[in-house]
């Protein structure tokens, strides 16, 4: 009888042991899986938090581009939160990696799990280059609201410098300073003409007025008055800026001794690259390898592809009138320079690839850009700069206009007189597309 009682207890204990073992196994494996999942989630979250910290540090450095940047940067700490719930915390530092690359190191911590990400950016320290947009007059930037949620933005890299004011609307983003009411120096064509005698030995001085009347010229240098009418190219009785402009190119720069190529540019009257009257240029209009052309009139560039003058080229177009360019575009190593005594007007250019190299514009009048497109380079207008992504039928929607800084180091192109306004910028993060020389693709990594 006693054996029978003990047998029941043994069965019960054995059963309980089996049940406990199975439950323990279930808990062991189940909790291990849960733990792995939690650890994975925390690591992934920590990576995102670390990236957020790196982006915050990048934002700080970007905003410092016009002032001195010290290395290493002061540590940046913060939290990534959703409402009142904190996901994790980050600690970000930045320091130089090489002479033209800096690195941001950001550590994100979520529930005790830490992930460190590094990202490298290219930069240029203390460079001297023209403003992206500079105007003796005012600058106006306007994006456009299209139908529905479509928007056409204006993006511009700073600095923007204006002799008067700068106006923007809600669809404009400027990366860098906007300087209003600046004294904007313009290139002087008089310095190279025979009309100005300010310590140069030439025939006349404009006295700083920008023009010389026939009477003034007669007083200053009676011996030279015989050439006055020749120099008064538009025959308005006054030798003024336009005459100086004309003379600078057709007589002065044309000479081998006065240009950077050291050759006859053939832009004097009667030469092959001198055009009189309004001109339309299309693909093939200009022989391959032509460095510069001069047009005494208006220029209408109907189509300008990167292959217009060959695979790699630098071209300068000078016009005493207005230059209208419908589709400015060029290759990554090219520089297209437009100098106009009148206005420079451009439309969208995305259809033909955009300006992959540089576009350098000087206009004695206004610079007007409608619709969208991408331009790297610099624009200096003696008058106003008017940018508008205005919506037209079938256009203007998601048709952004981007003005990027110059690719590479600044060197004055052929045809631009010295005196083109440049500014010194202490720190610039290089273009991040990696498309051309002078840019640097950011490089992310994590530990």
């Amino acid at each position: 009888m006693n054996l029978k009682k003990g047998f029941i207890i043994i069965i019960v204990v054995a059963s309980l042991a089996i049940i406990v073992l199975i439950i323990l196994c279930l808990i062991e494996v189940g909790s291990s899986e849960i733990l792995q999942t939690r650890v994975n989630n925390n690591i992934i979250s920590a990576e995102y938090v670390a990236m957020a910290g790196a982006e915050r540090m990048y934002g700080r450095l970007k905003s410092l581009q016009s002032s001195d940047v010290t290395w290493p940067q002061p540590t940046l700490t913060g939290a990534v939160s959703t409402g009142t719930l904190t996901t994790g915390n980050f600690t970000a530092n930045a320091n130089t990696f090489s002479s033209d690359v800096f690195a941001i190191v950001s550590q994100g911590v979520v529930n005790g799990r830490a992930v460190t990400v590094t990202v490298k950016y290219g930069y240029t320290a203390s460079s001297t280059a023209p403003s992206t947009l500079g105007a003796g007059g005012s600058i106006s930037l306007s994006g456009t609201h299209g139908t529905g949620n479509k928007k056409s933005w204006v993006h511009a890299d700073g600095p923007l410098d204006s002799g008067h004011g700068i106006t923007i609307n809600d669809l404009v983003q400027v990366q860098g300073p906007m300087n209003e009411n600046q004294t904007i120096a313009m290139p002087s064509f008089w310095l190279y003409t025979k009309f100005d005698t300010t310590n140069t030995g030439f025939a006349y001085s404009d006295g700083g007025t920008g023009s010389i009347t026939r009477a003034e010229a007669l007083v200053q240098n009676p011996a030279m008055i015989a050439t006055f009418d020749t120099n008064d190219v538009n025959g308005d009785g006054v030798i003024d800026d336009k005459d100086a402009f004309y003379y600078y190119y057709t007589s002065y720069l044309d000479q081998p001794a006065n240009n950077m190529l050291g050759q006859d540019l053939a832009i004097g009257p009667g030469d092959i690259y001198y055009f009189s009257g309004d001109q339309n240029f299309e693909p093939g209009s200009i022989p391959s390898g032509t460095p510069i052309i001069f047009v005494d009139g208006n220029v209408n560039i109907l189509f300008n592809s990167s292959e217009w003058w060959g695979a790699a080229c630098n071209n300068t177009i000078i016009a005493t009138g207005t230059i209208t360019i419908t589709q400015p575009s060029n290759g990554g190593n090219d520089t297209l320079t437009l100098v106009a005594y009148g206005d420079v007007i451009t439309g969208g250019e995305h259809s033909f690839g955009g300006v992959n190299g540089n576009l350098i514009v000087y206009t004695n009048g206004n610079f007007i850009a409608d619709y969208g497109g991408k331009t790297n380079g610099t624009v200096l207008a003696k008058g106003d700069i008017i940018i508008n992504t205005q919506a037209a039928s079938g256009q203007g929607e998601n048709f952004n206009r981007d003005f990027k800084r110059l690719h590479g180091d600044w060197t004055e192109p052929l045809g631009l007189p010295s005196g083109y306004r440049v500014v010194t910028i202490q720190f610039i993060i290089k273009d991040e597309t990696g498309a051309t020389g002078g840019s640097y693709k950011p490089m992310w990594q994590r530990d």
Partner: protein
Amino acid sequence: MCVSINSIRNKNGFTILELLVASFVAFLVIAGIWSVYVIGWAWWHEAIPKIEMQQIVRQAISSIIDGSIDSGAGTDYVSGIAYGRRNGIAWATGSPLITSTANEIKITYNLEGLGSQSFFVNLTEEPRKVYHNSAGNPVRGTEGITDISFQLVQPNLILVTAKAERDIVGTRASPYHIKVEESQTIFLRNVITP
């Protein structure tokens, strides 16, 4: 006075009712123990292989996307501290190239410091596994993977899908098929699109 249980028990044995109740209770206890045993046995034979396959798939995707710190990739020194570089496709410097043949599925990409890299699965071998760069370099923990695919959603966006499947002899009468599939879309931060 002390009275024992035996002393009050009917000496004539159990009644039929007592026997039926006792049998019913015993049946419930044994059925309960049996069901726990069956559940545990089934779980052990079904869930464990599934967990193993989940780990294989997870390991494969993690290895391909994040990679591991690769000493050959060089080191970034920032403020005197060394930071290693990983060799996964997440750090590719250009849009990867995906090739798929009857014998092989492969993704080729470039890394800073390492140049051309690849992950591939040899479809002719069993069990299959993920290799990094060469057939002599299998990725640990990926043996048992049955399929992998790469889809270039955008030049800088890749969908990676890994599968592991197996026939299991579990609690059922005949072997049955279990399958684990996991996908992850990865944004290639180092690939700049125009």
